[in-house]
């Protein structure tokens, strides 16, 4: 009976009519030629009829062949369709098909299309690959693997945000990150920052980190506007569509399958600087208790006074009674501050179904401790999904997932900003004689002790006491229904929600140099709830002997977002060790805000196909947004794209030339504003002396705001050779965003700091190349390469009429990212030195050092020139080996780490110091910035000798110098990943309960080389301080990047 039901279902599925009375019954079984396993769900059709069935869980089928039927056609996705005679007990072996090009790609609003019909670039990632690599942050796997995508890490501490950017920055002030859609629901990758990352704050995580990678089934990257147009407003920076296993359970028929995935890895600092160990603290070769290691040479002084009498006061037995300690190098003093971190990840996946109903459960847990003591990240996730096809043909699907993440870390930022205390203020720059790790870091009552309590908090104390603790819960739920109304008409509806709740506590403990030593607690409670509803009506028909295909989709979309945030500050901790707001002397509400926005969209999408080699797609969408003025709230935008498989059309296929496709797309995408962007408001401030106070908001607004638009043209081609063993996919695009909604920076004298209005034009143009080569493709030995190339040029074409430049983000007074006509997006403008007309440096005739120019200039461009990735995979029998290299050319970074390593004289870069230097240049007048001329009117070359100490600590090339010399070219070559593994033979496992077993070893960030960074600093230019925001190219003593080594085990049974 069960079998009959199953069969009937199958018949329905392939749209078969009635069974012919004169038919004969034929049975058979289908196997894979590759591994001999039964093929479940293969389609068996009687040629020339509409009669068909699918194979069961054992690969077996039985079919009634009408009298007119002679042969059977057996097909399965990814395998070559074969034709056999319809006879009983036939055994069919299906071979993998390298030629077929019918990969189904999930596109905007969940519409599935064949790769053939796409008029734009779309890449799909297989998450299984990533799960073999002990990679806690799934987004990082896109780096170098998908052309057109730029992924940047931020800090090397657990859970720190990853920035992802597709085809450049198209918005002046948006976050410029792609829209991330999980099972149809948009989720933000926003980073919630409690404290400005200039003056402190943690290495905050991003929104994406609360998605469980173990439950991801597919990840598709839609890069261009043509692909993303139907998502409208938020898709101008591309879209990443994620389908989870739980949210997309299909009508599978299999017994319970259990998959266990476990990985363990260690994590350490990728590269510490190469320290010099010849000179200790002081200046100009004489010892003093200073921060810089410019002091006396080791061996020239016996002992020095203990830098802080607290050590001796609280630990009299640990220090000599003389109060003096030995003056000697501590070669490992930085290394000893850190430890080896551990990452353990375990997941269980349960899946099964009876063909009509199916379920999936994914449970996972990640525990990560970083190399920084007291830093950790944990993620626990439960995802459950099920689907059922009801007797009336309605398919219902539902899923719920819950993820909790916990992040613990220390505080960062620029220590020199008033009231700041960065845990990395001195950590990498310890004077070479400081034994921080070997001496107590706190008093018995928990107050910090360092060589100078006034200037920095002992990093070991800081790690333990000044912390950021963040707890995030994300709940996602999804319901969908599909119904086939008529043969050619179907309807589907989806309702989903995502609720993201963040709860954070930032502690500055009693005794820190920050918060006046009194302690301070900040709490931040943030909740973002998003609801998304999508209704689709799809009509699809093949016409004129199947030569023409027509597909028309009509859709409706609703989106509702609610954000609440409450942040509080408790000043002065009363009782030590209790970190609750109630244990503080005074409390201030920092923020208490509700934000709501809504969007309604209606769209249509028409795809026409001719003979399966010419496709045309036209779509249009109209949005109504709550954030725009009523008169401008409705806006429409269209898209057109097409593809032409010329290899099929012209029939020029051969063994040499397999497939040739060209594609073209044009799209316009609209975007709305942030909520409450139309009316100037006042801010109510904290009372003063009992008087309530308020101030006019410094941002002025435009009540007639209009939607902004991005237009993009893309052209691409896909060429495959040698039976698809060599494949190229090339795309060129030109994206222009106009009428941007953004803030024009105003001079303070206007009375406002900014004006939010429509203005400007920004262009992104670039190329993407994706190439694969299967050099060896035997059954036992496979060797392939995958190469990607990404180049994007991001230029600001126009700002508002008469606006010269705009500050993108006020980082520091001496360097910030700016926008300016004709300049790259977010170029760095900072302080420079006076030069003569020929560009020679002007030298102060009194000191022999440089003369600062009071005017700022461009000092760097953080946008890389291009990026390349090269991956290779070798499979020999059951062994597999894969390696991934990538490189980034260009892009500049302002690095406080490098600046300080040089300025403090701690690395081998500045070890050669026992002679003087003459800075090449001419004498200049510090008052006028003009060269000083001799009696005959000639410039006078500098001959003043300066010490190495002054070269890096005076007004010259590092600390105390102008920012132009602390900006470095960020070109970097990297051996990013290496994985080696073994797939246990299925025959071997036959007697075990396991269906499959894989063990692999992986290494991440094995080696990098940054040729333009001072050699011994070993600074990784991939680190930055601003996480997933659009402020890039600025690093303020961030935690260095990590190296990971791990082992991974995957079992199914």
């Amino acid at each position, binding site marked *: 009976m069960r079998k009959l039901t199953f069969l009937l279902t199958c018949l329905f599925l392939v749209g078969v009519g009635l069974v012919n009375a004169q038919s004969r019954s034929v049975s058979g079984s289908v196997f894979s030629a590759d591994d001999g396993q039964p093929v479940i769900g293969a389609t068996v059709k009687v040629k020339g009829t509409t009669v068909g069935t699918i194979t069961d869980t054992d690969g077996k089928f039985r079919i009634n062949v009408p009298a007119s039927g002679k042969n059977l056609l057996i097909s399965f996705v990814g395998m070559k369709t074969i034709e056999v005679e319809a006879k009983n007990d036939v055994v069919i072996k299906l071979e993998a098909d390298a030629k077929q090009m019918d990969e189904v790609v999930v596109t905007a609003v969940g519409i599935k299309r064949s790769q053939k019909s796409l008029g734009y670039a779309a890449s799909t990632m297989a998450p299984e690959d990533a799960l073999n690599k002990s990679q806690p942050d799934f987004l990082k796997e896109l780096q170098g693997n998908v052309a057109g995508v730029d992924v940047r890490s931020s800090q090397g501490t657990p859970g720190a945000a990853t920035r992802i950017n597709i085809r450049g920055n198209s918005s002046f002030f948006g976050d410029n990150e792609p829209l991330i859609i999980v099972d149809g629901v948009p989720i933000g990758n926003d980073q919630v920052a409690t404290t400005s990352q200039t003056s402190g704050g943690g290495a905050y995580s991003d929104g994406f980190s609360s998605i469980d990678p173990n439950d991801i089934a597919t990840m598709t990257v839609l890069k261009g506007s043509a692909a993303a147009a139907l998502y409208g407003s938020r898709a101008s920076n591309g879209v990443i569509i994620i389908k989870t296993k739980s949210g997309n359970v299909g009508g599978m028929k299999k017994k319970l399958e259990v998959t266990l995935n476990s990985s363990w890895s260690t994590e350490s600092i990728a590269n510490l600087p190469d320290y010099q160990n010849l000179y200790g603290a002081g200046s100009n070769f004489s010892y003093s*208790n200073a921060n810089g290691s410019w002091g006396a040479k080791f061996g020239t002084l016996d002992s020095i006074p203990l830098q802080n009498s607290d050590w001796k006061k609280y630990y009299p037995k640990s220090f000599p009674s003389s109060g003096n300690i030995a003056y000697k190098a501590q070669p490992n003093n930085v290394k000893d501050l850190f430890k080896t971190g551990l990452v353990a990840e375990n997941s269980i996946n349960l899946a099964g179904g009876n063909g009509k109903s199916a379920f999936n459960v994914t449970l996972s847990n990640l525990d990560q401790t970083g190399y920084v003591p007291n830093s950790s990240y944990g993620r626990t996730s439960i995802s459950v999904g099920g689907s059922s096809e009801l007797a009336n043909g309605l398919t219902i699907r539902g899923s719920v997932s819950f993820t909790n993440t916990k992040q613990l870390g220390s505080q960062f930022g620029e220590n020199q900003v*008033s*009231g700041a205390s960065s845990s990395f203020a001195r950590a990498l720059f310890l004077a070479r004689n400081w034994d921080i790790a070997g001496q107590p870091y706190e008093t018995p009552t928990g107050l910090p002790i360092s060589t*100078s309590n*006034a200037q920095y908090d002992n990093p070991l104390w800081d790690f333990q006491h000044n912390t950021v603790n963040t707890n995030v819960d994300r709940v996602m739920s999804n319901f969908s*229904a599909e*119904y086939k*109304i008529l043969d050619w008409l179907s309807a589907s509806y989806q*309702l989903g929600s995502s609720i993201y709740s963040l709860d954070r506590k930032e502690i500055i403990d009693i005794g820190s*140099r920050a918060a006046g030593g*009194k302690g301070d607690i900040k709490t931040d409670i943030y909740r973002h709830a998003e609801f998304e*509803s999508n*209704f689709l009506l799809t009509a699809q028909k093949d016409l004129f002997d199947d030569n023409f295909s027509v597909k028309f989709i009509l859709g*409706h979309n*609703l989106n509702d977002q609610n954000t609440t945030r409450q942040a509080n500050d408790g*000043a002065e901790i009363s009782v030590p060790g209790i970190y609750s707001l109630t244990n503080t*002397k005074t409390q201030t509400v920092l923020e208490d*805000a*509700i934000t709501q*926005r*809504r969007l*309604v969209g209606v769209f249509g999408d028409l795809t026409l196909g001719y003979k399966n080699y010419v496709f045309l797609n036209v779509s249009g969408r109209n949005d109504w947004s709550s954030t725009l003025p009523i008169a401008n709230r409705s806006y429409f935008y269209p898209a057109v794209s097409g593809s032409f498989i010329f290899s099929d059309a012209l029939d020029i296929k051969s063994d040499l030339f397999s497939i040739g496709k060209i594609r073209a797309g044009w799209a316009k995408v609209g975007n709305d504003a942030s*909520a*409450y962007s139309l009316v100037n*408001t*006042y*801010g*109510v401030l904290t009372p*003063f002396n*009992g*008087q*309530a*106070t*308020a*101030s*006019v*908001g*410094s941002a002025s607004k435009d009540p007639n705001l209009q939607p902004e638009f991005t237009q993009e043209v893309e052209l691409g081609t896909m060429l495959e050779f040698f039976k698809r063993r060599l494949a190229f996919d090339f795309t060129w695009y030109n994206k222009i965003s106009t009428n941007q909604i953004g803030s024009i*920076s105003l*001079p*303070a*004298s*206007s*009375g*406002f*700091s900014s*004006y939010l209005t429509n203005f400007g034009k920004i262009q992104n143009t670039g190329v993407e190349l994706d190439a694969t080569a299967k050099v060896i493709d035997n059954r036992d030995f496979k060797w392939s390469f995958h190469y990607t190339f990404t180049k994007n040029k991001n230029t600001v074409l126009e700002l508002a009429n008469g606006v*010269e430049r705009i*500050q993108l983000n006020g980082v520091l*007074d001496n360097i910030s990212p*700016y926008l300016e006509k004709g300049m790259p997006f977010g170029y760095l403008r900072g302080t420079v030195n006076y030069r003569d007309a020929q560009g020679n440096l002007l030298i*102060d*005739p009194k000191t022999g050092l440089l*003369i600062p120019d*009071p*005017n*700022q200039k461009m000092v760097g461009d953080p946008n890389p020139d291009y990026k390349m990735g090269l991956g290779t995979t070798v499979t020999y029998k059951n062994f597999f080996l894969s390696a991934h290299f990538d490189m980034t050319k260009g892009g500049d970074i302002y690095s406080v780490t490098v600046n300080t390593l040089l300025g403090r004289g701690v690395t081998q870069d500045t070890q050669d110091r026992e002679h003087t230097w003459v800075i090449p240049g001419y004498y200049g007048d*510090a*008052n*006028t910035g003009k060269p000083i001329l001799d009696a005959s009117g000639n410039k006078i070359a500098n001959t003043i000798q300066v010490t190495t100490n002054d070269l890096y600590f005076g007004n010259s090339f590092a600390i105390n110098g102008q920012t132009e010399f602390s900006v470095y070219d960020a070109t970097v070559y990297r051996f990013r990943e290496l994985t080696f593994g073994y797939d246990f033979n299925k025959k071997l496992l036959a007697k075990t309960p396991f269906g499959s077993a894989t063990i692999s070893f992986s290494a991440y960030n094995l080696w990098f080389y940054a040729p333009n960074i001072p050699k011994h600093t070993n600074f990784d230019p991939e680190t930055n301080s601003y996480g997933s925001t659009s402020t890039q190219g600025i690093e303020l003593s961030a935690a260095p990047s990590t190296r990971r080594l791990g082992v991974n085990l995957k079992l199914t049974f």
Partner: protein
Amino acid sequence: MKMKKIFLLFFLPALLVGCTTWLDVNKDPNNPTDVPMTLLLPTIEINAAYTLAPGQGLGEDLAVYTHQVSTREAANVYNADGNEFYLNQAWNSMYITTLQNLDNVIVKADASNAPYYSGIGKILKAYMFSQFVDVFGDIPFSQANKKASDGILYPKFDKSADIYPLLIALLDSGIVDMKKPVAAITPGADDLIFGGSAKSWIKTANTIKLKLLIQTRLVGDKAKNLAAINTFLTATPATELIGKTSEGFMFPYSSVRTPDQRHPAYPATYEATQKTDDMSPWFYEILKGKNPLFSGIIDPRIPYYFYNQMDPKATAGNDGNSFEYRDGGFVSIYFGSNGPDNGRAQDKSQTVYGIYPCGGRYDQGDAQVVSATSGTGAAPYRFLTYADRLFLEAEVIQAGGGDATAKLTSAITEAFKLVDYVAGKANGSQSIPVLAGSSNATDYINAIIGLYTAGSAEKKMEIIMTQKWISSFGSSIDQYTDYRRTGYPVLFDPNNAVSVTPPIGGDPSRTTGSDPAVNVSCPRGFPRSLPWAITNELNVNKNAPAEKSDLTSPYVFWDLKK
């Protein structure tokens, strides 16, 4: 039938949209679109003080330029350029927070018949603009803060000489407003400075006017200018000028830490572990009678002005380092120093601001390492005091060739009363002696007056201006102006000093006589105006002039060297 139901279910959300009110959710529930004037006036007054006071505003760098403070920051070598944090912050709090709210108050006051609000607005506006003109010269004035009313995004800069007369007119208009009968809406406790007292504002306005007239007395026809000043002084009733210590134009800070209501230099000194302000040895030596000008005359205000963290006899420093300048308990660094001890950490040893400048600790000789609770921070920021008025009048008498002995005597006496007044406001729980009328004070005044009587006309003017400079410690804007318009007081000149020597025997940790002479140098000359803010103004204002190319050339129209 069933199918219909399903269809309906599908379309239900679509139908919902029929009502467009679903999208009407864009009214900001968090911030008001209008607030009463009573909430804006305190913000204006708070920010007027922040714009100018040391620790937060222009006073931070100018205290170094007028040689009352030493630092290791850029101001140390006259190099506070337009990128400077304090400068940009002052520019923001001036134009955005102070003036924009001020203009809003004036518009609201005029619309709701509240002349006192309007009058306070005009007087404060005139004062703040005058301070900016004095410091920067040409500034945005006529087109400033006109974005909301006239859509001006990029104000042009007006000439300093053109702005002054308009400020006098603004003061006159403010006085007219303050003399109107009491209206239904009048300021009270929301006026943090004078509690809504119209009389106090009239006194302030007239005294500001007097100051502006005196500041321009050397521009053009000097005799005519002096006559105009004297006419103004005769025509203005004594009851309409600041005439008592407590009538001084001062912003009252309190001791409340959160939200911070303390004098901004207090947390920057007493709470910050890494301190940026050292007390200038040049200033110290004048007070200590080590400078030839007041040789041998010790100023009794020293323990009110400075607090010594070091025990005068201690041989080991609290930070474990040797010092560049030490005289017993007084520890500091020189301006423009290249000395080997200049960069040493001395946060726990250096002499810091005392009770008078920022509400710190009165120095009773207890030599504590200061912390957030050593003082209160409740000292007012002194915009313009009764003592200032008396010194201004002494200057006028002296300039006119008269005998200013009586005026100078009362000015110095008032300066002592002012110290007592501030100590009274800022005292936490110390026992602080009264200064005015004490024998030390009397001796000091007599000694100074003795020097004055004996001095040449030039010396007399120098003594008046130097005494004014001493009295206004903590309020550096007018000091900077006075120096540039009169040449007094004589300031430390790093370019002629070459090397300076700390007091012999001042450092008990060194063998007497072994204190090394310290080399000082400064590549730049004295800046005769401050550069304009780059980050918040020049970088984004297309109508702004290029940054001043040479700060040593005279710039403001009343500059002595102009």
